[in-house]
């Protein structure tokens, strides 16, 4: 049975680390203004993810994509 759970908002410092690490791993050196805008966008995504993850679906629900060999 899906259950609503409380999740904390992802902190700004964690998002900065996520973004900087990901961009470095992809060999991208952003201009400061690109990074600032990307961080704003990542905040929107993180808040969306908190909303999605706050519905606990248990372990049985399959992800939607299905590979058909």
């Amino acid at each position, binding site marked *: 049975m899906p259950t609503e759970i409380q999740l904390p908002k992802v902190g700004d410092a964690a998002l900065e680390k996520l973004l900087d690490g990901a961009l470095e791993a992809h060999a991208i050196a952003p201009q400061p203004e690109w990074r600032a*805008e990307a*961080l704003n*966008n990542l905040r929107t*995504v993180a808040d*969306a993810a908190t909303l*999605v*993850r706050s519905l606990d679906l248990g372990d049985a629900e399959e992800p939607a994509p299905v590979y058909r060999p």
Partner: protein
Amino acid sequence: MNAPLPVADAARLATATAAEIAAAVSSGTVTARAVIEAVLARIDAVDPAVNAFTDVTAERARARADRIDARRAAGEALGPLAGVPFAVKNLFDVTGLPTRAGSKINRDLPPADRDATLVAKLEAADAVLVGALNMGEYAYDFTGENVHDGPSRNPRDLSRMSGGSSGGSGAAVAAGLVPLALGSDTNGSIRVPSSLCGTFGLKPTYGRLSRGGSFPFVTALDHLGPLARSVADLGLSYDAMQGEDGRDPGQTPRPFEPVSGFLGAGTDGLRIAVAGGYFRTRGLPEAFAAVDLAASTLGVTETVDVPDAARARAAAYIITAAEGASLHAGRLAARPEDFDPAVRDRLLAGLAIPASWVDAAQRFRRHFRDEMLKLFQRCDVLIAPATPCRAPKLGQKTFVLDGEEMLVRPNLGLFTQPISFIGLPVAAVPLWVDVGEARELPIAVQVIAPPWREDLALRVAAVLERTGAARAPVAGV
């Protein structure tokens, strides 16, 4: 039935519907070449103001029209789209053109050596491709603005957005440059331009039509479909484009399920409801007035709450950002300065999304689908707004919805995103309501059906069209 197309009236030829043109060319009343010349002349005259086209394939179109006319002269029966001019969003492969997908970067690609599957299918039905259409960069857009090619302008008010990302498709159809255009819809990119420009649009069920030979955005969510000025034209083109195709691994094998013969079936026996809850908030009064007009026209009194639509939109947002970023990671590293900044900075953010967030979104997608299928046991069709407002001004960055200032670019699709998230078929239906500002402009509703029931969505759209509540006249550019 309208009067026969007059051969000598180029303007009337150029702005006829696909059904009218096909009937006239098949019967020999008009040649395909005459239609194409009229359309090319209209594109020459009108498109500089609208900026819908990025490529006009005039010689190809003339050659194809001549072949169609020669076949008819030889006594051969023509296809259901005989001589019908059409154009495609420039993410469709067109032989001889680089598939730019709205970008600066992709125009350095070699020209396509083969047409996209849906282009080939329409031409197999004797339609005639006349060009490729402007779009938001890499389809990550709801505005129709493009920093490389300039915005496609709304033909009903050139100072306003066409909507995106299939902005050129909506603008070309509304301006009467072509009766039929193809677009793509990942989160709303057929339905938003249909609403802002005032055209009919069909986003079929996810997996119904082949995406072979189209440049992807988010393969988990990408759909292709038509925009037109009549429901009959949507049906004609949709029927011509069905069929299994090995070029799209995401396509679901389905039988040929034509709709054109059923568009007049009406709504008797259909359980139609208005989508409530999420779909009655964060819109301007005209968005809800359009839904109310559709409901009253159809005699609908029931409202149903769509469960968890906000979460569905959030999940679509995550999958879009992550998968789009993954697709473009190499280009972001190699040529970041060549992106539209508004697209680049969203894609950069997408690179940082943890896999667990994406997986949670995909798991929720399954759950939401199951919940919606339960809802469709109680009703056959849902009516919801297509956009929260009429066409914003070009360059407008924000709007205020329910007292909250929000960005235009990501939020024009707030009503479309939860629906495409689970791949439901939707007809976008343009209505004209005397509510709010800019009342001379259209705004569409979504007619939403269960999976694989495009016929139901189009039947309801056809009723709205027949009553006159919905219409898509050629804009007076």
